């Protein structure tokens, strides 16, 4: 079987979407990998009220953890230079008014850009919404990083989401371990494929029909 991209390569590719000056909210899990690869001048936001926090406290320096500073994934972080502290009302104005870029994980993305990423169960107890719905609706750009397929090979890029939605028609770009796909009014446009993969092979692992970009290329990092 062909090689899929490693998780940190997905993060590296998503990080390429970020420019100096961008303010970014990183979701739990895979998206946090972006932080390792972003250019200088990208600043991170946590919806609990920090913009521009500094480096994370690692597991071997637990004694440095100050629980006044927690990132968007609930991890201990440090104050950054030029950081601002604000309340949640201000924070969600920031999020809802299109001032941030959001990099989130996903369970499913539909061909229209619907996102399901908060709940794998049948009711409200099956997951946690947190800031995800606001980020999906409000961000200037929503980038989803996820595995292209479920563990048993099922589709994650689907015609219609079967998991509870986070928001409708909100996703701009999907970065997976196989491809980079843009959500456009004409449908899902396959822009890049993982090294060694063809558009046809990616299409087979994707439920909706993909539009192949005229300049389709291998993922560049």
């Amino acid at each position, binding site marked *: 079987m062909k090689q899929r991209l490693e998780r*940190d390569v997905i*993060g590296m590719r998503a990080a390429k979407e970020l420019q100096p000056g961008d303010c970014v909210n990183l979701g*739990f*899990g*895979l998206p*946090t*990998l972006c932080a*390792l690869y972003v250019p200088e001048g990208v600043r991170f936001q*946590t*919806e*609990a*009220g*920090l913009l521009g926090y500094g480096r*994370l*406290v*690692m*597991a071997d320096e*637990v*004694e440095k*953890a*100050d*629980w*006044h*500073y*927690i990132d968007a*994934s*609930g*991890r*201990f972080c440090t*104050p950054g230079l030029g950081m601002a*502290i*604000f*309340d*949640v*009302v201000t*924070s*969600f104005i920031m*999020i*809802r008014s299109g001032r941030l870029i959001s990099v989130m994980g996903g369970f499913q993305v539909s061909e229209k850009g*619907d996102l399901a990423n908060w*709940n794998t*169960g049948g009711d*409200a*107890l*099956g*997951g*946690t*919404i*947190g*800031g*995800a*719905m*606001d980020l999906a*609706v*409000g961000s200037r750009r929503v980038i989803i990083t996820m595995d292209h397929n479920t563990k048993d090979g099922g589709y994650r890029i689907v015609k219609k989401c079967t998991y*509870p*939605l*986070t*928001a*409708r028609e909100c996703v701009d770009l999907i970065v997976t371990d196989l491809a980079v796909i843009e959500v456009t009014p004409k449908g899902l446009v396959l822009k890049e494929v993982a090294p060694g993969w063809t558009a046809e092979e990616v299409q087979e692992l994707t439920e909706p029909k993909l539009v192949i970009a005229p300049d389709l290329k291998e993922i560049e990092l």
Partner: protein
Amino acid sequence: MLNKIFDSFDAAVADIPDGAVIAVECWGYPATAHNLIAALKRKGTKDLTVITHTFIPQVFSEDLATLPSVLLPQMKKLISPIVGIMRLGAGGFLREYVEKGMEVEVMGHGTLAARLYAGAAGLGGIYDPVGVGTIVEEGREKRVINGKEYIFQEPLKPDYAFLSGHKADKLGNLVYRGNYRSDQPMMAMAAKTAIVEVEKIVEVGDIDPEHVVTPGVFIDRIVEIPPDGLGTPEKGAAIIQQLTQLESVRDMLFGKIE
């Protein structure tokens, strides 16, 4: 001068009746009014509605710090955008209470903030764009305004806000620290009665007017956390040690990138 300073957490919550609506911040483990929650648990007030940012299981010792979930047996309703921790089974720990009749209302965190603002500003309701097409719109009025769908959301007006602050002066002028600010300023303003536990009570004039985050008029009761109180820096350090022992959350809390 009106005396807002209370000697004990028990005294500060003594008048809270059964059925009260309590707003209390919880950003995982910090930013929580641990001592007030513990006092309300001791008091045993029933049929509570709890509004909180994060409602997760008490994964560390209750004698170090307490989370809103210790009130579960006293609750009739939970309003929260974060119900559980995904890797601990999300909101599964609530199921037994839900089966016994506890109501759970979920929504996006920004919607919670907007509803608290609406309560504070006396609005009758707001049309919110977040949650359209999701579980959040179930049972709610929707309306198309200028071609876009919105959900009608009612204001939230807690009876009490339990706050965790850094410093307060005797008038109640309050500053937080770091993430502790979070939902707390709006919870204080939306609530009928706001009670704060602080690391330190300072003299009037000790807080620069430009730096006040919650003006004193919003704060009704102040309790200084004693050295043996919950959630002190020492107990915080002990909690962090306990958390690092827990396989399930350790990776989540420290900067390991998965």
